[in-house]
């Protein structure tokens, strides 16, 4: 008498579903981050329709990564939304980094819940290819929501991003989106580079180096991400 595993059909169904999910993720369109090093980390860029995280402490280059993505998007003629929960966005340095700030919708919500609601409204409109959700300062100033409600906020954001087929970049100090993140780039502080024109003259900050690695949605390799001023700037 043959032994038939009663679980075989269910296991086979699960295997096929997993296979389809992997193929769908591989075929997901990627949006360039504006920098070759980060694109290489992510296997082509940020996945569309998924929440992506940029994680790191202050001065690790995370805002520079996001700004480069925004600059690339606005250079293509697209409009971008920057949801600034901590009111930290600096248009001066963003413009110096190549962002066309006239194409940036700057929203200053208070707290994570208001930020997620604003993200839902922007994503429902359609037409915004990149939505930046800057939560780093929100958590730092103690306006974060309770843990149980944060889980529902993450889910709401992920669903809104998926429906809109946009790229949502969440800026945080510690990982926030969990398994809902399609990609996560973790940055660590690196060396600084200073420039000086004349021997006795003033010097300026040329570059902030950072070590970047992809935790999810890309190659598990480290890369060097360097923020530096353009020569002569």
């Amino acid at each position: 008498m043959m032994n038939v595993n009663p679980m075989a059909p269910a296991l086979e169904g699960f295997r096929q579903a997993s296979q389809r999910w992997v193929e769908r993720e591989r075929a997901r369109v990627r949006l360039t981050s504006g920098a070759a090093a980060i694109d290489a980390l992510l296997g082509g860029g940020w996945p569309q329709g998924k929440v992506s995280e940029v994680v790191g402490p202050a001065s690790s280059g995370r805002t520079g990564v996001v700004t480069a993505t925004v600059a690339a998007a606005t250079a293509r003629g697209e409009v971008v939304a920057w949801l600034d929960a901590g009111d930290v966005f600096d248009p001066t340095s963003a413009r110096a980094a190549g962002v066309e700030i006239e194409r940036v919708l700057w929203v200053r919500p208070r707290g994570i819940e208001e930020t997620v609601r604003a993200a839902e409204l922007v994503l429902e409109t359609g037409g915004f290819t990149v939505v930046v959700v800057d939560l780093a300062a929100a958590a730092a100033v103690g306006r974060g929501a309770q843990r149980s409600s944060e889980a529902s906020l993450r889910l709401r954001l992920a669903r809104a991003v998926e429906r809109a087929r946009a790229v949502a970049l969440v800026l945080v100090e510690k990982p926030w989106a969990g398994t809902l993140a399609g990609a996560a780039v973790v940055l660590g502080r690196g060396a600084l580079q200073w420039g000086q024109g004349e021997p006795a003259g003033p010097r300026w900050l040329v570059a902030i180096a950072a070590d970047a690695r992809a935790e999810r949605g890309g190659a598990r390799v480290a890369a060097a991400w360097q923020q530096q001023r353009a020569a002569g700037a």
Partner: protein
Amino acid sequence: MRIAALRIPGFPLQALRRSMPELAEAPLAIAAGPCARDQVVAVSAEAAELGVCAGMTAAQARQVAPEALVRVTPHEVAVAADEALGDVAGGCSPRVKRRQPGEVLLDVGGLQLRCGSDERIAHKLVRSCRHVGLEARVGIAGNVGAALVAAQVACAAAHVRRGEGTSSSPASCHGDTVVVPAGGEREFMAPLPLELLDPASLLAEVLARWGLHSAGALAALPREEIALRLGQEGVMLHRLACGEETVAFVPDPLREAMREGVELEFSLGDLEPFLFVASGILSRLTQRLELRGEGFAEVMLELRLEGGMRREYHIKLIAPTREVTAVLALARLQVEASPPGAPVEGVVAQVVPGRLRLTQGALFGPPLPAPGRLAMTLARLAALVGPKRVGAPAAPDTHRPDAWTLAPFAPVLHGGLDPRATEPTSRTASPPVLRMFRPARAAEVTVAGDRPVAVRVDGFGGAVVACAGPYRCNGEWWSEQPFARDDFDVATADGVVLRISFDRLERRWRADGVYD
């Protein structure tokens, strides 16, 4: 010169029916005022069949025909209908003169190349009036006086057609229009009764005693004798009877704002009925905007509340649109956020029109938000976070650091794709980006000489391992809030790179942001 006269017969009646379409078939009589002794000034055909006629008092009309509705046309409704008539004229010619409510003159000379014959222009005007809810009569002639008389004849011809007989006139009469051929004004006027020329009552009495009943009879008399016996007034009437110009055509200056309003029979205390009324007003405005090829750029909703108070809601759209639903949704958001506080007795909408932006999306262009939906989203975001916390960064005219403000987000939504922008850059770097502290945080800075050697801000910082600066800037010394500061970029021992500044006027240190 060719002048067209647009006249709305029974204007108060038509104005009321335009704002209250449910009265279209009702036996309606319009009184001059709310008192019982006020005279009836306009009567609908249905009320006329019941025996009501103009000149009766309101009380008499109610007695003769109890089922007839005796109403007073509210001022705002009449003004809106008159402005709609002006918009119809303005949509045809830029030279328009409002003569009196329900009557407007326009210069149609030169339009024949675009519209064809004068008959076609007249029919176009009638159709356009019908589009905004008014039945008009049009007369076209070589001068103002003859055009007005031609419009009168058109009105009378409509009555004649409803009764019996025909008018014999050299002018071409088609439906609701009368067109007097160029140079044919005298011949047109000749058979017309003198009453159509609207003489003053004393003058009409004198002419009747003389046995003159037609314009041709008057025109046959020598003008000098008319001047001696009847004075300047008689001369003007004589000129009119001869089909000559009596008054110069001076067009009105162009007006920018458009208004529509309604007075409510019952006060409205709920949002949905109010929005229903507002929807009707906005729809009528849309019809007028279509004539001008324009859309809603700004809408001011003025509510007249119980107790005599007024409340205004100002709706600004990022791009002109004719979508009533979009404007209504924005109005809903504003009213929900800030309710009027009392039942609404009347609503007036004033519109600043704007040229519609026609954008053609490129086939391979970037995805962009639709203007109507974007306007809605911006309004919802403003309701969520506050109107001063949503917009596009705008640099004010100053060198003061971090003086950015927010301007209305209105990107140029054009298609077109720069092929070079799609290529990923080979750069691995971009300029350092600052994350601002708003407001700037107080910093504890230890200084050696004139340079910081230790910085502590809100629990992070430490010994300074590298420093760049000072970058000195000052400005607005002529104002009440001058600034003078030295900026430093410092890297501390814990790895954080800060932008700190020393305020030379207040003599204190601040941390302005952190590089990230």
